[in-house]
């Protein structure tokens, strides 16, 4: 008996060692992509979306033979290396440091939260590893001057992009609708209240709003600017202050755990019968579930909606990605997931363009990359990075939510931009405009 157990033990150890030997190929025989994702901690739901979407992209590319590297004269498979940032700055530093120095990754993809990403940028800069950041929205990420960010590429809408597109929508669609419906003069300015998270993210939007109004000479008057602490749950007093300024529209920069109580308390407790706008991270099934009837007729910015697909060139890719993800993992991948899915494809294309795994050459290829848009709508229908700040430019949509009795939740329809819209923006009967 003892002998049999001993043989079984030796066989088991041998199998483990063989499996270990075959898993990792020699350097240069594979493309190692480090995926920075919050697999544990407060952002783990998003982190799992990021990791699983990266895995889906890698599987698809590997099923097609891998990534062609001209230097090697053959295709090499992608091997993903998971770097759990634990949803913290310190966790991100440890994960990135390990992936670069021990796992010797060729390129990094992912990174959620501007705070977490900014904390490990110095490590990436020191080792000069190309990094496609897909989950941070502060433009500072690639614009900061205290760290060399030349190896970093930002594939996510920044606060500037997001803020400016909401303001353009308000000016060219909402303002005329209000002035026309209430017989106001056509040149009456839109009375805008801003309620923003007291964070770089919220302040980034606040700055973007003001810059867009000034630079584009828009007819929008800011009547209130109120901040709230991140993670706040009680907004009644700040909403009461806003109500006293009599706005037409309330632009909210908040995450969904803040946006839900803001809209609920505004409509239910304060009687603030206005149009609310929500920034793109709120376009999430949990938002629709949480906001309930209070979301009716509100506006949500979107880049990858769970309930509506922009008609046009990305529609098929959207459906394929969502279906494949659901089949493999179950559920909806989320916007950070889709950006990372694209990020892996961008990394593969950059390596193919560079023809080598040399990091400097891959960085240079990323700087000049031009590839067709994939799942998300991009400006010029092309994924490329701006020469100054290495940011890709997204075509964001604005959705209006309408109550769906069968779902017992609101559902979105695209109302902007003109080329992608499904229906026209409407003002609800209960809406009360600001003073003339």
């Amino acid at each position, binding site marked *: 008996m003892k002998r049999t157990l001993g043989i079984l033990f030796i066989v088991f150890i041998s199998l483990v060692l063989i499996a270990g030997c075959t898993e990792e190929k020699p350097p240069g025989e594979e493309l190692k992509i480090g995926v920075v994702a919050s697999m544990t901690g407060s952002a783990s739901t998003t982190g799992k979306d990021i990791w699983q979407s990266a895995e889906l992209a890698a599987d698809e590319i590997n099923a097609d033979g891998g990534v062609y590297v001209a230097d090697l004269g053959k295709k090499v498979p992608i091997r993903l290396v998971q770097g759990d940032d634990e949803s913290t700055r310190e966790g991100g530093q440890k994960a990135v440091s390990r992936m670069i120095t021990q796992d010797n990754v060729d390129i990094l993809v992912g990174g959620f939260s501007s705070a977490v990403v900014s904390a490990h940028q110095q490590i990436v800069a020191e080792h000069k590893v190309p990094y496609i950041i897909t989950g941070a929205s502060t433009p500072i990420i690639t614009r900061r001057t205290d760290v060399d960010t030349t190896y970093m590429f930002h594939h996510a809408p920044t606060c500037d992009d997001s803020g400016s597109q909401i303001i353009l929508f308000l000016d060219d669609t909402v303002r005329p609708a209000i002035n026309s419906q209430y017989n106001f003069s056509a040149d009456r300015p839109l009375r805008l209240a801003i309620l923003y998270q007291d964070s770089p993210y919220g302040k980034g939007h606040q700055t973007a709003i003001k810059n867009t109004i000034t630079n584009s000479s828009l007819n929008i008057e800011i009547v209130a600017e109120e901040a*709230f*602490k991140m993670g706040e749950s009680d907004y009644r*007093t*700040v909403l009461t*202050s806003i109500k*006293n300024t009599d706005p037409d529209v309330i632009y909210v920069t908040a995450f*969904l755990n803040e946006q839900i*109580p803001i809209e609920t308390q505004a409509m239910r407790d304060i009687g603030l019968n206005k149009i609310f706008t929500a920034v793109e991270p709120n376009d999430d099934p949990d938002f629709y579930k*949480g906001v309930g*009837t209070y979301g009716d007729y509100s506006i949500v910015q979107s880049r990858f909606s769970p309930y509506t697909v922009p008609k046009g060139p990305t529609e098929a890719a959207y459906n394929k990605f969502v279906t494949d993800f659901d089949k493999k993992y179950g559920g909806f991948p989320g916007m950070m997931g889709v950006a990372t899915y694209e990020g892996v494809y961008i990394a593969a294309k950059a390596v193919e363009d560079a023809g080598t795994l040399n990091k400097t050459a891959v960085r240079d290829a990323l700087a000049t990359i031009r590839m067709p848009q994939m799942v998300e709508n991009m400006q010029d229908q092309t994924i490329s990075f701006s020469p100054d700040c290495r940011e890709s430019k997204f075509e964001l949509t604005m959705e209006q939510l309408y109550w769906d009795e069968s779902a017992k939740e609101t559902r979105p329809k695209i109302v902007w931009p003109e080329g992608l819209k499904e229906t026209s923006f409407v003002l609800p009967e209960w809406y009360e405009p600001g003073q003339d």
Partner: protein
Amino acid sequence: MVVSSDLIIQVMIWGLYAGCIYILLATGLNLIFGVMKIVNFAHGELLMLGAYITFTFYAVSGFNPYVLLAASLPILILIGVIIERTCFRPILGTGKLNEIFISIGLIYIIQNAAAMIWSDEWRTIHSPFEHITLKIFGVNLPLDYLIIVITTISILIILFLFMQRTRLGKAMRATSQNRKGAMLMGINVERMDMLAFGIGAGLAGAAGTLWVVSGQVFNPYMGSIPAVKAFAIVIIGGLGSIPGAIIGGLIYGIAENFAILTLGGAWKDAISFIILILVLIVRPTGIFGESAE
């Protein structure tokens, strides 16, 4: 901005409502500190568990979430008793550092366990009364908030009667006032510890239920902010003092709402801590606090 009397009353009501949840949390903390002389840093996590228990029973039974106080309160009392018996009793009296690290460790254990059971997505439930708003003296008052204020007052009255009129309550107060003296009088102080921790946890569970029915969102990591506020209230009111927790909670809730109205949302936490510092300067033991035993 015009600050009318209606507006002031409205803001006071928001402050009163906000204060209710803090009061329940802070009263529980104070009860535990008063009897056991330990600071439970994981108290916010007990509120979070109360929220999830309400959510789970609501999803399964579809009952009115207020009725589910009858579930969250006893379950949290039981959880509190288990935590006291398994985590705090073995290290009680072995040094403050041990107690602090046990309670900090509990934060992570409870958060991760909740994330494993319920996932870490944000959750909400909708109260059946969420669309009912009463107009009282020109002020909008959602029915839910009125129920929350009445429920809080009721719980506090029951707690007061328990502490003042029952043998167990009197024994707890005696233990709180003089642990050695209570032991010499034949009071089983370990039993009082268990009871205090259980009731404290139960109050946090009730706060969790009220948090949920007021339309707030929650996830496994939401307990830390309410807990920090509860700690501030405990210090303002005086460590170990239940009336202090009530008065501190009201001062805190109303002050932070007036700070938002007059100075802006960014000052909300700052003003509360300014009050805390002022109270400590004038009366280092807090409003109702007494010198250490």
